[in-house]
């Protein structure tokens, strides 16, 4: 059986992404909004700087923030990363006046922000696509990095527990490891949790 496919070039299956646009220029905002009609992007325009940006970010929960590099609100956005429970967002800054490549180089590599030229409607979608992709890549690397750190930390814990066991219980390295593994299997705990418990127990004696 065949279904007729009614969809057009809209990105089927890709969830809608909400853009918070911070820009004083109403005309530019309008043209951006219409340029992104029929795409996965939905523009919510905020004429800076009269409204409380943080509250807006909180309420709107944008997936991406687009801001004029000349907007005073940039300092608010810049400080967002210090707020611990703030979920990082990709930020695209645009500049109608400056050489954006040079500014780009000066912005922290890997930071979720980058600078593009003026928001020309025909160019804007690929720019946003690239920003989202780059941000996800960056987040992925960050997660991998923290996973790696986590793994290293638990390997250290396991090593430390093993050495303690060898010393205090007079076991060989292999025996110590097997003891820990058995405990983990018997109790259904992770190896590094067992190690942590062992360290806190054995260290007290």
């Amino acid at each position, binding site marked *: 059986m065949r279904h007729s496919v009614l969809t057009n070039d809209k990105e089927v299956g890709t969830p809608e992404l909400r853009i918070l646009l911070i820009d004083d220029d109403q005309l530019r905002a309008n043209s951006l909004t219409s340029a992104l009609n029929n795409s996965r992007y939905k523009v919510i325009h905020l004429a800076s700087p*009269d409204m409380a940006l943080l509250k807006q970010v909180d309420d709107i929960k944008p997936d991406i923030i687009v801001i004029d590099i000349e907007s*005073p609100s940039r300092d608010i956005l*810049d400080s967002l990363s210090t707020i611990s429970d703030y979920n990082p967002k990709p930020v695209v800054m645009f500049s109608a006046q*400056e050489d954006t490549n040079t500014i780009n180089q000066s912005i922290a590599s890997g930071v979720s922000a980058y600078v593009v030229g003026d928001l020309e409607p025909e160019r804007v979608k690929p720019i946003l696509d690239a920003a989202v992709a780059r941000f996800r890549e960056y987040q992925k690397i960050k997660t991998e990095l923290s996973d790696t750190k986590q793994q290293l930390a638990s390997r250290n814990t396991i090593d430390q527990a093993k050495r303690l066991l060898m010393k205090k219980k007079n076991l060989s390295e292999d025996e110590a490891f097997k003891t820990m593994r058995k405990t983990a299997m018997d109790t259904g705990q992770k190896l590094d949790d067992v190690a942590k418990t062992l360290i806190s127990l054995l260290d007290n004696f």
Partner: protein
Amino acid sequence: MITPEQTKLTLGFIPLTDSAPLIVAKNMGFFEQWGLDVKLQKQNSWSTLRDKLHAGLLDAAQMLAPMPLASSLGLRCTPTKVITPLVLSLNGNAITLSEKLHQEVLKDNGISEVTLPLAAYLLQKVISVRKQQNRPKLKFGTVFPYSCHYYQLKDWLASANITELDVDIMVVPPVNMVGFLESGEIDGCCVGGPWNAKAVRAGIGLTALTSFDIWQDSPEKVLGLLESWQRNNPTTVLALTAALKQACNWLESIPNRFEAARLLSAEQYLDASTDVIAPSLIGSCLTHANLPPRAIPSYNQFSKANNGSINVPEYIRGEWLLSQMQKAGQLAGIKVPNDLVKNVFRPDIYQQMRLHLEDIS
């Protein structure tokens, strides 16, 4: 006289009362005297000013005193060697409470008027009453994470054992500060002029104390530029520093200060009335619509304090700023090189400039 390598310069500034040295140097012809053709470019945010300086779009800029250290350490930016050969000003900030918070302070403490400078412990009652009534925490605005404003606000609150667990502190650009106070988005702020005076004149706030009441004579704004630019243009940097030092000296006289207020009020600079710019420059702290101003002779210092020059970027000043950053927890996990301050604060350039300045005077 000296011959600068680069004569056309673009300097960045944020429209604030203490950007006076740059605006005076431009308008009184000091830059010209040193063979410089300077364009002053108004900036709307400290982050963008920093990025443009790092990118070389600005040759030099008026910066918050901790910023060159933050740039060199790469705090929330790519590590970039920024130096300062000149301190531009001391003091200049103040803490203003919204009228609503002012009323809460009076009511919760059962007093009919406040004594200024306001003691932070008067906020303790407000904080606990709000907690009892399940109302939101007090929110304070400050201009940038790496700013004396932030450290001064923290210090003042800490004098009454109030920490960021008890109140929220957020970054608000100076230009939005008064609006945020009025709308209730924030309950108080630490900001430079003319914004405190603006809030008072508009009847929406009480300037509780100035930064001089918290820290005496601490560096507030400095001239920042890239180390690499200085290496390629050492004479330009001397000329620039000399012209700005002359402007700072010019600002020493109170009659000149009023003239400076008039210059600053122009649209391309602060775009504000002398009514709000002049007071701090002539040593007056506006406090409240119904209260008299306070005399704070050192509100804005550009040249002399305690008979010494304030403009020398002494290491001790850098060390002190670094210790404030440390105290605020901003250096956690950051490796601070031992020679950081010596690489950023450059009294050697200042001393060289002094020799040239003496030549012409």
